[in-house]
């Protein structure tokens, strides 16, 4: 699979995790692509942490949206009918208070305890955490979508080495190789891309994987 195919493959699988009626927060990059992969009978409400509920893309070029309605990634958006705007204290009250069902976001590293690192590479890159630390602590379910490795190096580790975003926060990891649940016992490979063997997935993963007795093909 090329880069674009990998992305679509991961996003299509992540879309299956969302249920009709869910309130979801979608990180920059792959997560933002999820809504276009949802079947018609699954309608979700997208929250943006800077104060929007019911976010939909702007199809038209509009200076007005650039000036008054951007999402957390500074992309001009609008709200769907029934959506609304509110301030940041309300928005993060909803996030921290468990009123967001699912948050999907990228990661630099995830480890076998469900620890997540995704906001800083000391000395190299300092994007900042924005709303990510609140989202992964507050959302009912936290899904990480990412490529399985970075330049061939594992990103799913025994222990995160980069500064953490939060402890024990990740529920599910979706990569182009498979779907991994974070369980009490450790990381459990529950679905696998039929192009790979479990051994290949383990080889690309630093943390030990428990292979589900019920391992299914990832589709």
């Amino acid at each position, binding site marked *: 699979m090329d880069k674009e195919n990998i992305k679509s493959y991961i996003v299509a699988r992540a879309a299956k995790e969302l249920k009709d009626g869910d309130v979801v927060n979608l990180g920059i990059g792959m997560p933002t692509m999820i809504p276009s992969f949802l079947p018609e009978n699954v309608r979700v409400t997208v929250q943006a942490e*800077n104060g929007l509920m019911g976010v939909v893309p702007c199809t038209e070029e509009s200076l007005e949206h650039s000036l008054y309605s951007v999402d957390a990634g500074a992309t001009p958006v609008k709200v769907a009918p029934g959506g609304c705007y509110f301030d*940041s204290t309300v928005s993060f009250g909803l996030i921290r208070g468990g009123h967001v069902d699912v948050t999907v976001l990228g990661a630099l590293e995830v480890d076998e305890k469900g620890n997540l690192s995704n906001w800083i590479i000391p000395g190299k890159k300092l994007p900042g955490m924005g709303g990510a630390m609140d989202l992964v602590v507050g959302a009912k379910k936290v899904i990480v979508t990412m490529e399985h490795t970075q330049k061939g190096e594992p990103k799913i580790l025994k222990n995160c080495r980069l500064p953490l*975003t939060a402890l024990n926060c990740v529920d599910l990891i979706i990569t182009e190789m498979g779907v991994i649940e974070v369980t009490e016992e450790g990381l459990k490979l529950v679905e696998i891309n039929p192009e790979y063997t479990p051994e290949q997935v383990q080889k690309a993963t630093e943390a030990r994987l428990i292979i589900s007795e019920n391992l299914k093909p990832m589709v």
Partner: protein
Amino acid sequence: MAKFISVEEAVAMIPDGASIMVGGFMGCRNPHKIIDALSKSGKGNFTMICNDGAKPAGPTGEEYYGVAKLIHNHQVKHLVATHVGLNPEVGEQMNDGSMKVDLIPQGSFAEMIRAGGAGLGGVLTPTGVGTIIEDNKEFTHSVQEIDGKKYLLMRPIRADFALISGFKVDRVGNVWYKGATRNFALAMATAADVVIVEADNIVETGEIEPENVMTPGVIVDYVVDGGSI
């Protein structure tokens, strides 16, 4: 009740070294007229408390958008923000030691400013527990365990000035924000000694329904006419 002043008068009030909260998000509805004038004022050494460092290119052709102007001009000695990834100059100035940057989780940031304006002793949040946020003693007071769960006690934040952009501002200073631009505005307006609102539209009192006022005019000190956009 707010007093209506010119952008020049607003900038004249802000001294070198002031701590300044700025509303808006990634440059979107920073109070652009005031920031622009401030960027040409020659003043500096500011502590900016602001969600982000904005970004280089603005949607109407600005070379630097909003607070990115002040950062580009090296007028900011300390930036307290939640995300600075869209403005590469923040990282550069941080690395060359010319600007101090403190990063705070966005939800905590909002709540800490709210606490500063609402007379609360701090914010007890689960956000940041087990991370390096715990080590930033300037903003994190302590780690507390309450009924078996860990929280960070984050300190209240206040500033000398709050600079905010409002879509509609009436004659007594009541403010209504359009779209996604409300963000930290109400919290900041409570947490600064002097509150200056840049109005996209100055409207007659009564045009904003009393229920729909988003920042009460009684906490707005000054209004600057932002003029047509």
